[in-house]
Structures are given as structure tokens and as C-alpha cells.
């Protein structure tokens, strides 16, 4: 049935891609585990507490202890829950959050897939993340979970529009949907990065990213003061762990994308500065991308510790009446500017 001699190369390629994705996923999951530790520490220090400090030196083994505890806990299934969908939902939330990493360029030439429409691919996958939460809300057969899922569906659909429009600005400047081409279009030092000409769009993108991942101050989906725990109120043990992983890897993905789309990805901010030439640390490389991503990951925690939760109608107002008009106007301004300067690609 299979012609192994001619297809061997193809199968080898498939095996290679699988291997490469493991090289991305394993570090990612470690980062996500320690992201939860960082969150508790950072918020702890912001609130003048110590945060976790019991397990291991300075509490460094806390994430491992948490993971072990969560995995060994009993998985409770509500009696009236929809059996199949109840178990599919956490996976449906996790897969898109991990799948987005396929097109992320880490350094020049270092990526799993060089997709021409990479930007669209990422946008499509982030919008798929909504299904995990909606299915969870419905399959749990619980009022709280369903209310959380309803809020989430409306919130994600609204902010996706603002997010998409913000990315249109990036597309206009870079002239490409390919993520590595977008990074290369920003070469020339910190002043050539897209966050300067696209400052309003950058703000809209970052805030929409926080809203898309249902993080504070936009976390009405969980809203423990109103909905107990929102969509995952009925989940325990491994199911809850998967939702947790999905949320944190989605946050990491948004941080990584912000670094790539608006802050030049792996490019060094000192590019083209005479005194920085020859210093290997200041050269472009993956460490710059890691630094920028880490900064935006920190911003997520910083926002959570700083801002009080928005009311649901305020979230909708901000999305539809502030962000979408801002992006539309800025796209128009960009178009006119590009026409006047004559850089239309």
C-alpha cells in the first residue's frame, strides 16, 4: 500500500517535524510551570508578601509540587455532565494555545514552520481557544460554568476584531504576513521597531491580548466574586491542570507575539549603533527575543496586581467603542501617511 522507497523522505520529514515540536513544547511547558511560580512571587512582592517559599530553596520547587498534587487528585465528573464533551473541553483549550508556537520565529532561520500567512494562522488559532471554554461551560451542566462561557464567547469575539485590526497596521508596515519577514522589516535598531509608528495599535493589541486570554482585569469569565470559578468550576485534578496550562501558554504566546510584531523579535535594539558593534551580547539573537517576551509576560502579572476587575459592560464598551474606532482611525492615518511618503509596497 505504501511505497516506502520514494516516501521514506516524506516520512522522515514528518518524524523530524514531530521531534522539533517536542523541542519547542517541553521548554514551553517548563516555562509555563515556572510562570505560575513567577506570578505568585511577583504578586506577592507587589503586595508586600513573600509568596511561596516553603518547597525547595526560595520555593523554587513549588510548581513541581503543584503539578504532582494536581495530577494525583481525583477527576470528579458531575453526574449530569455531558461525558464526552466534558473531557474534550480541556484539550480543546490547550491545543490551540500550543499550536500557535509552530510559526513563531525564535531567531533568524529558527522556526518550526515558515508559513506565508503566519500572522493569520496565529490569529485563527487564538480564536479557536474560545471553544475549549464554551464547551466546558456547556458540558459541565452548571449555571456558573455556562454564565462564564457566555461571557467568554462575547468577550473573545469582540476583542478579536480589535486585535485583528491592530495586526492590519503591522501588515501594512511590513508588507507581509510572514512572521520572520515582519521581524526583518523592523531591522535598524530600536527606532525602526513597529511600536513607534503603531503606538496606538500596540496598546490596543496588548490590552486585547490580555482580554483574549481572560486575564485580570478582564477575567470576568472566572470572576470568583460572582461565578465561583466561572467556566472551570466543575473541573478538578487533571482537567483543571489542562485549563491552567492553556491559559498560561496562551499568555506566553501573546507576549511572544507582541515582542515579534511590535518590538523586533530577535533583533537587537542597538543595531546600527557604532559602539555596539563587535560586542557579541549586544548582537541580534534569540536572547533579545527571550528578554522582550519575558518583559511582556511580566506585564501580564503586573496588570493583574495593579488593576481592579472591569465590569462586564465596561469591557464591552472598551472593546467596541474605544478600541475598534482607534484602530480604524489609525489604519486610515497609516494609509494616508504611506501614500504621502510613497512607501506603499
Amino acid at each position, binding site marked *: *500500500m*505504501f*511505497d516506502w522507497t*520514494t*516516501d521514506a523522505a*516524506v*516520512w522522515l520529514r*514528518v518524524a523530524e517535524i514531530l521531534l522539533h515540536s517536542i523541542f519547542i513544547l517541553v521548554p514551553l511547558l517548563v516555562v509555563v510551570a515556572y510562570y505560575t511560580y513567577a506570578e505568585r512571587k511577583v504578586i506577592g512582592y507587589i503586595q508586600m508578601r513573600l509568596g511561596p517559599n516553603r518547597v525547595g530553596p526560595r520555593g523554587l520547587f513549588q510548581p513541581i509540587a503543584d503539578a504532582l498534587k494536581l495530577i494525583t487528585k481525583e477527576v470528579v465528573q458531575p453526574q449530569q455532565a455531558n461525558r464526552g*464533551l466534558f473531557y474534550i473541553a480541556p484539550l480543546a483549550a490547550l491545543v490551540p494555545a500550543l499550536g500557535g508556537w509552530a510559526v513563531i520565529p525564535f531567531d533568524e532561520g529558527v522556526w518550526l514552520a515558515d*508559513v*506565508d*500567512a503566519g500572522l*493569520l*494562522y496565529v*490569529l*485563527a*488559532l487564538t*480564536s*479557536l481557544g*474560545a*471553544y475549549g471554554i*464554551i*464547551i466546558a461551560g*456547556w458540558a459541565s451542566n452548571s449555571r456558573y460554568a*455556562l454564565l462564564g*462561557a*457566555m461571557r467568554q*464567547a*462575547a468577550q*473573545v*469575539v469582540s476583542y*478579536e476584531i480589535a486585535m485583528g485590526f491592530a495586526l492590519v497596521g503591522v501588515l501594512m508596515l511590513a508588507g*507581509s*504576513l*510572514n512572521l520572520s519577514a515582519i521581524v526583518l522589516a523592523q531591522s535598524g535598531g530600536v527606532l525602526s521597531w513597529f511600536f513607534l509608528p503603531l503606538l496606538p495599535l500596540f496598546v490596543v493589541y496588548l490590552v486585547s491580548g490580555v482580554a483574549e486570554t481572560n486575564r485580570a482585569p478582564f477575567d470576568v469569565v472566572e470572576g470568583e466574586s460572582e461565578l465561583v470559578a466561572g467556566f472551570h468550576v466543575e473541573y478538578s485534578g487533571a482537567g483543571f491542570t489542562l485549563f491552567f496550562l492553556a491559559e498560561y501558554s496562551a499568555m506566553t504566546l501573546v507576549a511572544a507575539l507582541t515582542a515579534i510584531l511590535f518590538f523586533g523579535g530577535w533583533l537587537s535594539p542597538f543595531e546600527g549603533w557604532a559602539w555596539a558593534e563587535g560586542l557579541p551580547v549586544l548582537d541580534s539573537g534569540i536572547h533579545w527575543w527571550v528578554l522582550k517576551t519575558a518583559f511582556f509576560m511580566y506585564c501580564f502579572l503586573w496588570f493583574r496586581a495593579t488593576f481592579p476587575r472591569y465590569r462586564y*459592560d*465596561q469591557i464591552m*464598551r472598551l472593546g467596541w467603542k474605544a478600541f475598534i474606532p482607534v484602530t480604524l482611525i489609525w489604519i486610515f492615518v497609516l494609509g494616508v501617511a504611506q501614500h504621502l511618503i510613497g512607501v506603499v509596497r
Partner: protein
Amino acid sequence: MGFQALLFYALAAVLLTAAVATVTLRCMVRAALCLILAFFTAAMLWMLLHAEFLSILLVLVYIGAVLVLFLFVVMMVERETPAEQRAPFRLSAALVALLMIAELLAVLGSEDFGPAQEVPSTIGSNTQALGAVLYTEYALAFEAAAVALLIAIVGAIALTLRERGEQHRQKPSEQTQASKQERLRLTDGRTEPPC
């Protein structure tokens, strides 16, 4: 059989199963989820044809936005329609299905059905090629479609924005205008007699 062929048959099998499940399942939510699966597999098939832009757009627009709202509505309605309520619709449903099959056959069977544009043999970027045609040759049709959609959006908003007298609404413009003088009153600490 190569890897591509294997992928195609696997995806086609999933697509057909999901499509059949969409129309046969009694539970509305499950049917809607199967529809999502069918759309997703169709997008994967387009991807196999190197139509990556259309494929991702199908996922982004239909699965990412339209079907989210669809699922949302389906979840609000009854889980299953009783058999006696379904019965009167059998005949009309069959008629509509027949009509659609006839229409599909008429379109797909005609000799005019096929690409109007020659597919460029050196596809550098699918997205770029599509954009180049869409904004030059078909600019007028594209703009007309955009205007039609805009009218639909305005219409939908106008339909939902009817003011009903007895409603209590948040008025954010009034809320942000609130000042200390009208909300806060300082007293000297003694309780005032009830008036």
C-alpha cells in the same frame, strides 16, 4: 499511496463523517460541534491544495467568529426537539434538501464552472497573488460586497437599538461626570436626626 494522498483520504473521511453527523444528530450542540469539525477539516483540505490563505480565513472567520455565536445561540435553546414537533417539518425539509441538491448539481455540472483566472504557476505567496487580483481586477465587486456588508451591520445594530421606555440603563457619560460635590457630604460626625 503517498503521504499527501493518505492525508487527503483521512481528512475526507473525517469531513464526510462530521457532515453526516451534523444533519443526523438529535442533540443540537453536538450537531453544531460536528459542523465546526466539518469546517475545520474542509480548511485542512484547502491547505493540502496550497490555498493557505483561504484555508486560514475559513478557520478565522467561520470557526473563530460565526460558529462561536452560532454555538452560543444553540446552547440557549432546548436540547432536543420532541418527535411530534419535528414531524410537520419532514416534507418541507425534504423539499429544501432536494432544491439545494438540484442547485448544486446545476452549478457544478455546468461547463462554465471552473477557474476564471489562470492559476499562476509560480505561486510565491498565495496571499499576495490573491490580493493582487482582488484589489485590481475585482476591485469594484470587492467594494460592492464591502458596502453590502456595512449596510447589513448598520441594519442589525439599528434593529437592536430600539429604545424601550421602562428600561434602566447604565449611562457612562453621566457616570464619568459625577463629582465629589454631588455625591459626598461631610458631616461633623454626629448622627443627624432622621427627617
